C-alpha cells in the first residue's frame, strides 16, 4: 500500500516538476541603445584661417584632383600676398583656375541627373563634411528651380565661402 502511494506521489511530483520546469523560462531583455550624437553644428570646428599657400594648394586639389607643383604654389601664394583684399585675390585666382581646360567639374547633365548626389559630393569635396538636411534641401531647391545654375557656379560659391577659408 505504502509502496503504491509512494509511486503515485513520485509520479505526481515528477509531472509537476516537468510542468514547472517547462513553464519557467529565463526572461529575455530587449536592450535599446542610442548612438552618441554631437549637438553642435557640423562646421564649428573650423576656426583656423588657412594661409594663402594652404588655401591655394587645397583649392587646386579640389578643382583638379591633383597636387599643385611647388613652383606654382610659391608663385600663386606670392600673387595672393600682393593684393591686400584677400577675398578679392581669391576670387581672381579661382576665376583664373576655372578658365583652365583641365579643371575637373561635373557636367550640367551629371549634376541634374542626381542633384542630391552632386550636393553631397560638393560638400564633401570642399567642406569635408556632409550637408545637413536643411542645407541639402536648400541647395536641391535652388538648383532645381534655377535651371541655368551650372556646377561651375556652385563650385565657385563653395571655393569663395567663409567656411572654406578655415580649417
Amino acid at each position, binding site marked *: 500500500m505504502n509502496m503504491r502511494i509512494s509511486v503515485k506521489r513520485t509520479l505526481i511530483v515528477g509531472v509537476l516538476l516537468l510542468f514547472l520546469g517547462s513553464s519557467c523560462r529565463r526572461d529575455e531583455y530587449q536592450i535599446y541603445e542610442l548612438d552618441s550624437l554631437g549637438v553642435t553644428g557640423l562646421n564649428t570646428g573650423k576656426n583656423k584661417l588657412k594661409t594663402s599657400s594652404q588655401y591655394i594648394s587645397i583649392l587646386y586639389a579640389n578643382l583638379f584632383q591633383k597636387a599643385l607643383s611647388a613652383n606654382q604654389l610659391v608663385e600663386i601664394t606670392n600673387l595672393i600676398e*600682393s593684393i591686400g*583684399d584677400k577675398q578679392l585675390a581669391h576670387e581672381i585666382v579661382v576665376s583664373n583656375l576655372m578658365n583652365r581646360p583641365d579643371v575637373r567639374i561635373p557636367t550640367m547633365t551629371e549634376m541634374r541627373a542626381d542633384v542630391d548626389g552632386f550636393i553631397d559630393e560638393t560638400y564633401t569635396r570642399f567642406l569635408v563634411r556632409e550637408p545637413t538636411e536643411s542645407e541639402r534641401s536648400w541647395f536641391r531647391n535652388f538648383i532645381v528651380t534655377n535651371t541655368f545654375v551650372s556646377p561651375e557656379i556652385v563650385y565657385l560659391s563653395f571655393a569663395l*565661402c567663409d567656411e572654406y577659408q578655415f580649417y
Partner: protein
Amino acid sequence: MHRRSFLKKLGTATAGAVVLPYILPTGRLFAASGSQIAPHVVFVMFAGGVRQQESVLQRYLADSQQFPSEGNIMNNMLVGAAPVLKAAYGTDPGVGPRGSVPIPAILQQSLQAQGLLFPELRATTAGHYSGYNTLLTGNTGTTQGLRQKPIYPTIFEYLRRHAGTPASKVWFVGNTIGNSLPLLNYSDHADYGVSYGANFLAPNLTFSSTGITHLSNAKVYHPEEEMAPMLQMKYFLNNSYNSSGGVVLPNIGNTDEEKQDIRDFIRDTFAKVQTNQIAFPPVNDNGDLRNVGFACEVIRRFRPALTVVNLSSVDGCHSSFTGYLRSLHRADHAVGYLWDFIQTQVPDMAGETVILVSPEHGRNLAPNPIQDENDWYAYDHSDANSLRTFSLMAGKGVPQNLVRGSENNPLGSSMDHVLTMAEILGIKNEVQMSGLLAPGTLSLFDRI
C-alpha cells in the same frame, strides 16, 4: 499740461537738431572736428635707408669715399647744383663711363622750393620694418616684432575710422611683398584693425610675368545669370557657417561695388601692361620706378584720399655704393614724376594734394669693407648716423621755400608724419585723442 507737453517737444526737437546733422552718409556719427588742409595726401616712404650725407647734405662722394666731389643728385626734390666730378649715378651713355648721364629734372621747381623741408629729422630706429611702422603709426614700436602686424593703428585706420573714408580711397602701394610690407595696411589694435585697413597692392609682383600667367586670364561671369546665383549660394553658405558659431572672416571692407572697381582696375592694368601703356616714368629701369608708374595708375583710377608709396632700392647700399647712388637718383626721379603726374594727369587732385617724402631711417657714418666696381665702400645702417633723416612736403596749404632745422639743430621726428597727415586730412584732434601716438609727437606744421 500744455506747458509740460510744450517743454517735452522742445527738448526732443533740440536734441534732434544737435544730433541729426552729424549722422553722415559714411556711417560715422560725428564729422571730423578739424579743418582740412587738403583732401588728398600722397606719402612717399623714401625708404631703404638714405644717408644724410648724399641726400640733403649734398656731399656726393666727399663724405663717403674721400673723393672731393660734392653736389645734389636729387634734382627734383632739393635745391642745389649737380656734382661736377665722377658722375656715376645717371643713365649709361652709348659711349662713356657707366652712369655718367644724369637724368634731367622733371619738375621746373624742386619740391624744396615749392614746399617745406626739415633737413635734420630724427628717426627712432635703424631697422626697415620698425622704421616703416614708425612712419605709419606715429609710435616708436620698440616692442614691434618682425613679421607681425603693427601694434599701433596706422594712418590708414585713423583715416578710415575717423573720417569715414571708403576702403577704395585708401591705398598702400608697396614695391615688394618682402620686408613684411604687406602687413602694414592695418594693425592688430583692438579699436581699429582690419575693418579700417588700406587696399594693399604690390604691383611689381601682381602685374609681373607670373601675374600674367595666373591672374590675367580671369573668367568673366555673366552678372545676372552666373554671379547673382553664385553670390546667393555663397551668402547661404556663409549664413550657415556663421550661424553655427563660425569665425568672422577678416575683411578690409571693400563693398561689392568697390571690389568690382578693383577687379576692373586689375583687368585693365593687365591689358595696359601687355600693350606697354602703363604710366611709367621716362626712366624706369628699376623696381622703384616701375612701382611709381603703377602707383600713378592707382591714383588716376581711384583718386585716393591717402596713397602711401614705398620705395627701397637704395638698400642695395649694403653691397654697392654705386648702385645706391643710382637708386637714390632714380628715387628722386620717381618722386618728381609722381608729383608732376598728379598735377598734370589727374585734374581732380591737381592743386588739391599734399605730397610728403621721408626715409624710414638713414645709414652709417662709417663704411663696411665691401667695395664695388668703382672701389667705393658700401654702407649699412646701425649707428647714430642711421637715425639722421629728413622730411619734405609740398602742395596745397604748405608753406613754400621754407627750411626748418639744420645739421646742428635737429628738429622733428619720423613719428611726426602721422599727425601731419592727420592734420592735412582734418582728423588731427581724433588722432591725438586716441592716445596712441608716442609722447611728444607733433604735427610737422606745429614744428614750424
